């Protein structure tokens, strides 16, 4: 199998860390991974995006035109990228910040997860990205929760390992919310 997922948000939302995390999880599962980050024109405070492709074999293109799953963390990202989700794909939306009402996405499953809200409830809004990761693995079934836990150890610097349990909890909350 070849999986691809596209994450987008603004600068401070931890989009790249989320992408790294999924990448480490996929590696943990023995997959080949390509993680391709991109920034808007302005690096600071601007848009942040990344595409992760993982597969047993060749990952092929690191760029994906129509992602099978997109995780969109703010309005701008939603407006710009929601329509690109592949037919039959999934669009996971941070409903705390995104109003989807203006857009119809026929053939795409939209999953609304109030990520900011959940993260805030867990005690730290910066865990938005963990919530998003949880939602992603829940809906895609592409990776195991255990792999993400293992990945956290790799992706986070040693000094932040104490935060891992909280992060795992945030993921679980994200997964739960996505399950609907």
């Amino acid at each position, binding site marked *: 199998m070849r999986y691809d997922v596209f994450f987008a948000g603004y600068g401070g939302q931890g989009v790249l860390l989320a992408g790294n995390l999924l990448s480490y999880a996929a590696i943990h599962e023995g997959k080949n991974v390509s993680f391709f980050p991109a920034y808007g024109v*302005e*690096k*600071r*405070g601007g848009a942040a995006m990344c595409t992760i492709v993982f597969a047993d074999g060749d990952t092929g293109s690191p760029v994906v035109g129509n992602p099978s799953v997109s995780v969109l963390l703010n309005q701008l990202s939603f407006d710009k990228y929601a329509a690109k989700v592949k037919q039959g794909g999934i669009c996971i939306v941070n409903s705390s910040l995104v109003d989807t009402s203006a857009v119809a996405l026929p053939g795409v499953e939209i999953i609304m997860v109030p990520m900011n809200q959940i993260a805030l409830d867990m005690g730290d809004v910066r865990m938005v990205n963990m919530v998003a990761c949880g939602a992603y693995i829940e809906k895609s079934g592409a990776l195991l929760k255990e792999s993400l836990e293992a990945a956290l150890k790799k992706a986070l610097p040693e000094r932040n390992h104490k935060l891992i349990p909280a992060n795992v909890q945030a993921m679980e909350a994200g997964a739960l919310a996505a399950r609907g």
Partner: protein
Amino acid sequence: MKQIFTRPESLKDVATHFCPGCHHGSVHRLVAEILDDLGIRSQTIGVASVGCSVFLYGYFDVDVIEAPHGRAPAVATGAKRARPDRIIFTYQGDGDLAAIGMSEIIHAANRGEDITVIFVNNTTYGMTGGQMAPTTLPGQKTSTSPYGRDTAKDGSPFKMAELLATLDGVAFSARVALNNPKNVLNARKQIKTAFRYQVEKKGFSFVEALASCPTNWGMSALDANQRVTDEMIPCFPLAVYKNSANL
């Protein structure tokens, strides 16, 4: 009620891309005010350099030439020789002016080109993500001096205002800072003097502005501002190093 402080006309009414607390904004405003004060906006051509100030044309309401990294003084020389009736200023960062552009600034200064150079010294390469600059302080950690600037291998910070003041071609050279209102007001005064040199065709004028780069210093805007006071000014003394015509 009168607006006694408002945006200068020479500065477009748009938000900048500068990080919060970045002194580039302050220097932009001061230069624009001087263009207004001296009534020279319509004669002025700006020469932008490569660095965080690359979008000069987006902020200044003057015609702008974008120079390759470090080459603004040469570009300005070409423009000034072609249009000696225009006011030409360059706006350059420390990487731009004191590293890659060392030869161009020294030679333009030595030729005494009738241009004004605004030099923003923030001890790092802002735009490219905080690498060591020629003005990085001894011991300062940057993304390419991870163990701190080692003067034994990397050399000491360049004092451009002093260095250029030694050249005959330089008519005016000063260093200013933007870290408190007094210094801001003084900076305004020196920048004005610098442009007056050009208006009066009295030769090459240079203002070095000590500036903060909170983002690449990894500091809050307030802490960065404080660092200008605590670390930069002691290393780079504020002064007028040359004022040959006493303007």
